[in-house]
């Protein structure tokens, strides 16, 4: 193959592949053209991985795209040089750049689900690049695709390419996206937050794939993320960016061990686990009790099976599990959006009607909810005054000056000034939007607030600020939280009790200390070991554990009988676990443990 021979000609190990000098990019805003990348230099050698870190608005993605000589609509590269393997991309013609993109430089987007065309089979999309660039024929490209799928340990590699994008899971789709980026054998891959939307267990699966590809094939990569712990597993060098300015650049080890800049320390600090000091409330009263609730949608299977949870006043109960485990369904059952098929919900010792329409205004007022994505939880046509004011007039009958006064008071509670009262959601940042959602929940003066993944759509630093705010509000207003999350770091820092859900069944629940300390339930252990740690080499260590080998790269499946986790469990007892429901054990009061093994037995395996 001629193209390949050409490509490998400049393949000396330490040669500089990409060099960016004094890059300046402007973006169009209401105030006209404004600089969003202010003079950034970077150098990338062959086979190296560079991590770009920063919050949203730092210009990470813009720089990543500029490395391909591309500027998004409404952006323009004003000055600087981008030299890729001796080719100056700023002055190169569109034709020249087109020959490079997808061929020698490729791009992996954040959401694979949005990046694949749903109307074409996966392997056909894989072959598109190589055929277009005339690197291979269609049959050769497809053969290469199958080979790549096999080397990436995708299930059924010979036939998976014949499926449509919606027929494979999110993690698999993201891995196929990585495979697609490799289709022409590129020299440089730009990864734009490829694991941000994924569960911890799926994240490991994708990280593993990326690591294998990059090290085995001597490809250079730019990895864009806001999560330091993730990029620490991959990158040789890190660049910390903020508002388009370079804050710090150094080797990964140096940044983690000895950050020089204040901002880098703040980023590291936001990712470090801060244990919440348990609030001691004597004889806490039960606020919410869910008694063996079973629920499902339409005629479908039971998404929740006999789930029982107790929530005490003034505490935070966290519900954790991967996507598909039924966490959000539980929230919908509590709010009344989805009446359960069986089981009861008691609130303040009175029975709560199953359906929303049967509940009284006061019952509705006492349970409020905060959503995962603040952008869709706020009506874009309503000002902050209407958003926060509506629960005040609806539940509490406030109006006029009284209402206005209370809105400003609530804004103060969530640390926003009263000037925000006339803003539309478009005029707020992600963190501010989530604060308004919190204010809306507070306005109803609720007893219980359900927080559904409230920080997972936010940057690390903003997320930490929101968590701090929630904890402060809990202390001041003695609120009770039901905190739904897949992020165990967050849970560890905020929860008093933890409920671990798997495939609609409770795997384990109890006080945080009991759940997060050995002996672990096998599923809790898998979740805990999947949370990236802020040190290099963590990924390799984790992947070599038995938990990872057994449990990663599998989907959550609801089972009619046996333990749903059995097929991913490293300590599953053959035949028994797939056949019998695991017995509920109570090793200590308030600690429930669903497993065939006795907790003491599992201690041995923890070593």
């Amino acid at each position: 193959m001629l193209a390949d021979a050409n490509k490998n000609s400049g393949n000396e190990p330490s040669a500089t592949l990409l060099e960016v000098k004094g890059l300046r990019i402007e973006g169009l805003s209401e105030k006209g053209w404004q600089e969003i990348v202010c003079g950034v230099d970077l150098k990338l050698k062959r086979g190296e991985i560079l991590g770009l870190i920063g919050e949203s608005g730092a210009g990470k993605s813009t720089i990543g795209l500029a490395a391909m000589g591309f500027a998004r609509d409404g952006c323009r590269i004003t000055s600087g040089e981008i030299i890729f393997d001796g080719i100056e991309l700023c002055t190169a013609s569109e034709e020249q750049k087109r020959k490079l993109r997808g061929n020698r430089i490729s791009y992996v987007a954040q959401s694979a689900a949005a990046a694949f065309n749903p109307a074409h089979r996966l392997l056909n999309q894989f072959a598109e690049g190589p055929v277009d660039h005339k690197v291979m024929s269609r049959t050769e490209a497809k053969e290469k695709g199958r080979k790549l799928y096999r080397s990436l340990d995708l299930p059924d590699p010979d036939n998976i390419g014949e499926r449509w994008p919606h027929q494979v899971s999110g993690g698999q789709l993201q891995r196929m996206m990585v495979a697609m980026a490799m289709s022409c054998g590129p020299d440089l891959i730009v990864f734009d937050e490829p694991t941000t939307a994924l569960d911890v267990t799926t994240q490991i699966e994708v990280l593993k794939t990326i690591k294998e590809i990059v090290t085995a094939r001597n490809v250079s990569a730019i990895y864009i993320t806001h999560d330091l712990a993730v990029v620490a597993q991959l990158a040789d060098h890190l660049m910390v960016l903020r508002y388009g300015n370079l804050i710090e650049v150094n080797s990964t080890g140096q940044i983690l061990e000895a950050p020089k800049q204040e901002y880098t320390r703040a980023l590291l600090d936001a990712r470090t686990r801060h244990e919440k000091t348990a609030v001691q409330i004597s004889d806490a009263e039960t606020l919410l009790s869910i008694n063996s609730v079973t629920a499902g949608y339409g005629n479908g299977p039971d998404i929740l099976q006999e789930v029982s949870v107790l929530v005490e006043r003034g505490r935070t109960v966290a519900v954790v599990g991967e996507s598909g485990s039924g966490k959000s369904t539980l929230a919908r059952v509590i709010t009344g959006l989805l009446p359960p098929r069986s089981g009861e919900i008691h609130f303040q010792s009175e029975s709560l009607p199953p359906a929303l329409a049967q509940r009284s205004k006061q019952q509705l007022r006492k349970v409020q909810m905060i959503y995962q994505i603040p952008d869709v939880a706020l009506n874009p046509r309503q000002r902050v005054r209407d958003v926060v004011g509506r629960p005040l007039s609806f539940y509490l009958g406030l109006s006029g000056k009284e209402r206005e006064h209370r809105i400003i008071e609530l804004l103060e509670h969530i640390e926003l000034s009263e000037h925000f009262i006339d803003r539309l959601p478009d005029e707020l940042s992600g963190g501010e939007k989530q604060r308004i959602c919190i204010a809306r929940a507070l306005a109803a003066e609720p007893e219980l607030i359900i927080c559904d993944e409230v920080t997972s759509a936010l940057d690390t630093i903003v997320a930490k600020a929101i968590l701090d705010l929630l904890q402060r509000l809990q202390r001041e207003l003695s609120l009770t939280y039901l905190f739904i999350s897949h992020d165990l770091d967050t849970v560890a820092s905020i929860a008093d009790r933890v409920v671990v859900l798997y495939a609609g069944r409770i795997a384990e629940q109890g006080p945080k200390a009991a759940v997060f300390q050995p002996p672990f339930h096998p599923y809790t252990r898998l979740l805990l070991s999947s949370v990236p740690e802020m040190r290099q080499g963590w990924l390799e260590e984790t992947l070599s554990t038995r938990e990872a080998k057994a449990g990663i790269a599998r989907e959550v499946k609801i089972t009619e009988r046996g333990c749903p986790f059995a097929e991913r469990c490293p300590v599953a007892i053959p035949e028994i676990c797939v056949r019998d429901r695991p017995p509920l054990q109570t090793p200590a009061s308030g600690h429930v443990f669903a497993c065939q093994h006795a907790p003491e037995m599992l201690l041995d395996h923890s070593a």
Partner: protein
Amino acid sequence: MSNILKIIFSAPLSAKFGMLVVLIYSIVAIFAPFIAPYGEREILGRAFELWSDKYLLGTDNLGRDMLSRMIFGARNTIGLALSITILAFLLGSLTGMIAAALGGWVDQILSRIVDVLMSIPSLIFALLILSIFGTSVPYLIATITVIDATRVYRLARATAMNVVVMDYVEVARVRGEKLGWVIRKEILPNITAPLLAEFGLRFCFVFLFISALSFLGLGLQPPAADWGSMVRDNATLITFEDMTPLLPAGAIALLTIAINFIVDWMLHKSSGLKDVS
């Protein structure tokens, strides 16, 4: 008030032109009896007189003043088209939003009724109804309203469906808000842009539909002046190389274009698209 003026002055030239045309049309329609030199139904002279100082645009097939009938026609046709469009929008968007918000069997029943109505070609449907019930103005309005409401229903339901799945609608429901509030405050503000655009287009279609019916003799009945029937009545003149019958047709075309200019501008504004120059 000064705010509205500011917005109007910031409009592009095409929208300004559209607004000017609509303004002139409305003045003519409202003050028709004062502007028109002669009465709507007065027979003044011989049929098909040429343009002269006395009859600026000549006379029609019965000897009535063309200009006066054009002016009164504006009043009749625009008034009819406007009221039909407004009624169709009230009916169509309200039922569409209810269907989207409630879903289930309400949605099923409403949507199937609309499907049945839409499966009958609209002109044939109108001809049928009007020949059964007669061609009085109330029946004319009711028939075209129903026909057009089905199109509005489809659009309103489709756009509202996209809004209903948003978390903020769920927030309102969990809060315990009634259906009316959800529709008025959560859904409607988010679908006004496409509805407005459709309003402009629908208005033009209604206009053309009335004219078509009038041309077939089922629209506004003589002696009331109407641009559609004026084209029909004087069509023979075209063969004599006289352009007079094309004037009412031109009036229709001009208004259609003007309204679409305005709607384009409003859409552009509300969609928040930025000009990238």
